[in-house]
């Protein structure tokens, strides 16, 4: 399932690519792209495990860039 999320307060471009790297490593994510300029995140998530995976994504985001929030 492909989902697009808006991000708020994603302040640094380098963090965006770090976030992308980290999210890509989460199990259940087949594709991740974090765009600093459009402040958007595109994810391909395993539908069957959506809730579990998205929780991990939020946690990872907070870890890499504490200021940034994912708008659901």
């Amino acid at each position, binding site marked *: 399932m492909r989902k697009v999320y808006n991000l708020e307060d994603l302040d*640094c471009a380098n963090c965006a690519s770090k976030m992308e790297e980290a999210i890509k490593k989460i199990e259940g994510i087949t594709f991740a792209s974090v765009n600093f300029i459009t402040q958007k995140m*595109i994810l391909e998530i395993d539908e069957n495990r959506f809730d579990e995976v998205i929780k991990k994504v939020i946690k990872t985001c907070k870890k890499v860039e504490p200021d940034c929030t994912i708008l659901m």
Partner: protein
Amino acid sequence: MESIHLTKKEKKKLIRIILAISFFVVFFVLDKSINLANVFRGEFNWLLPFFLYLIIYFIIGYDILIKSIKNILHGQIFDENFLMVVATIGAFTLAIYRGIIGETIEGFDEACAVMIFYQVGEFFQSYATNKSRKSISKLMDIRPDVANVKRNGEIQIVDPTEVALDEIIVVNPGEKIPIDGIIVSGQSSLDTKALTGESMPREVSEGDEVISGSINLTTTLEIKVTKIFYDSTVSKILDLVENASSEKSEAENFITKFSKFYTPIVCLVALILAIVPSLIWGNISVWIYRALSFLVVSCPCALVISIPLSFFVGLGTCSKFGILVKGSNYLEKINSANIFIFDKTGTLTKGNFKVANIFPKEKEDEVLKLASICEQGSSHPISKSILEFYQGEIDENYTITNIAGQGIIARNGNDIIYCGNEKLMNENNISFKTINDIGTKVYVAKNQEFVGSILILDEIKQEAFEVITDLKDNNCKAIMLTGDNEIVAKNVSMQLGLTEYKSSLLPEDKVVETKKIIDTKNKNDVVCFVGDGINDAPVLMLSDVGISMGGVGSDAAIEASDIVLMKDDLKGISLAKKIAKKTMSIVFQNIIFSISIKFAILLLTAFGITNMWLAVFGDVGVAVLAILNAMRVNLKQK
């Protein structure tokens, strides 16, 4: 003059920057004129300048400090915030150390300046990216907010997604058409600029199909909905634009890889620089100072922001001209595309076929009448031209069989009508008279008896000449694939000066031919297919870059192609190539510029030729210049 609009966060930061700079100027002037360290004499004379500069440091850098502590707790070591903190606190400590051992006190001002510059750079980056983000999303401001639906004689205002098929919507002047449909009453002009880049308004009246996203200009229209919102043009386009940046270019991937190694390596070298030389030659404070300067330059921000920004502005500029590019990788590819395969009908030629001549064996009318029986119900441009030309009645009692690549056979009892090309005649052993004129020929026969033939002509698009010449000037090959016969194909090819053409191709042959071209190309060749998006989805997908034209309204084309020219104008190809070239050269400039400046500063710092002031330029200044350069992609194109 556009007003400067800042977000709350930016405003707060700006106030802090101004405050810090004013304090800094006062303390700096005081320090240089009366030397703050001499105000109190003795062992602790460094305390006064230390505290004064510390105030500035906290004003400007408290958020960075907090962030870096948080990140350390999360295990993010090579975080730019943290590196800045290490560099500046290091400079502070070094200054204190100098004060304690009785050397001249210097370094407090530097530490503060580094932090101030860093924040100024961050502020500018955030401002610049916000601004270009806004200006580009404004371009694509085609999303309709509401739809006025006529239900039970009343007009209800609902969300466009809630409108069902065949409902009637009302669009007032000044409003956007929310959903695709057909006009049932009213006559108006539409502004389709946001969709196609075409600035001339389009005149529409009853019976015309209209696409969502266009703006109604003059009078109220009533429109019957033919597609639900999610299938409407506007939805498809927004979907494409929003997902545009998901596919990254090679340049962007390079930067990601580069930055992954750059920061750790610079930090490692800094560590070595702090320890090894001072063990050999002593003078530890000098080497630590140089190492700290290294850390200031260690963030690859200039690259990490400016490269995607260049692509973003490039994609935005394209969409301004009605050219939708699905990802920055395609912008990169179209720049190096050198083999262009064109579909003929509707792409190089206008596709509005007209009956040019009729060669009857006996009666002209009979030829047309029989041909019309065969062609009825077909949407093929050739069929349409015949049906348009024939004004009489059509007998509908025939069963029609389509024979791919040959034509049509219509049967009614014992009557059989053949209508098609030479192949069809030959296959069915009908003797006929060939025409030697250039054009598409349709031969008509009834019950093995040749009746006559029709000559149909298609006009070459005026801009095709320009575009093909332009491509050839840029050392590109232009190849045409067509289902038309050899003579027509050769004629078009000669007129346009094409490199190569393949004629008499069935739709599946086009796929085979394209595959052949792709298989035999050199490693660096990039194959680009240009078609009108009808029936050529497989070829669009197969080629490195698939371009469909006049794609508005055809969602299959939008899905299959990588670049969509919303205006049915070949010049979009030259334009896309031009914008891509500009984008790529700016990307290249930024990569070379940023990397070489950074390495130069690192080198000079290692030998002690420069100081931290220049290092902070290497970080912030380069980023600012690279961003300004990135924004140039847009500025030069009007």
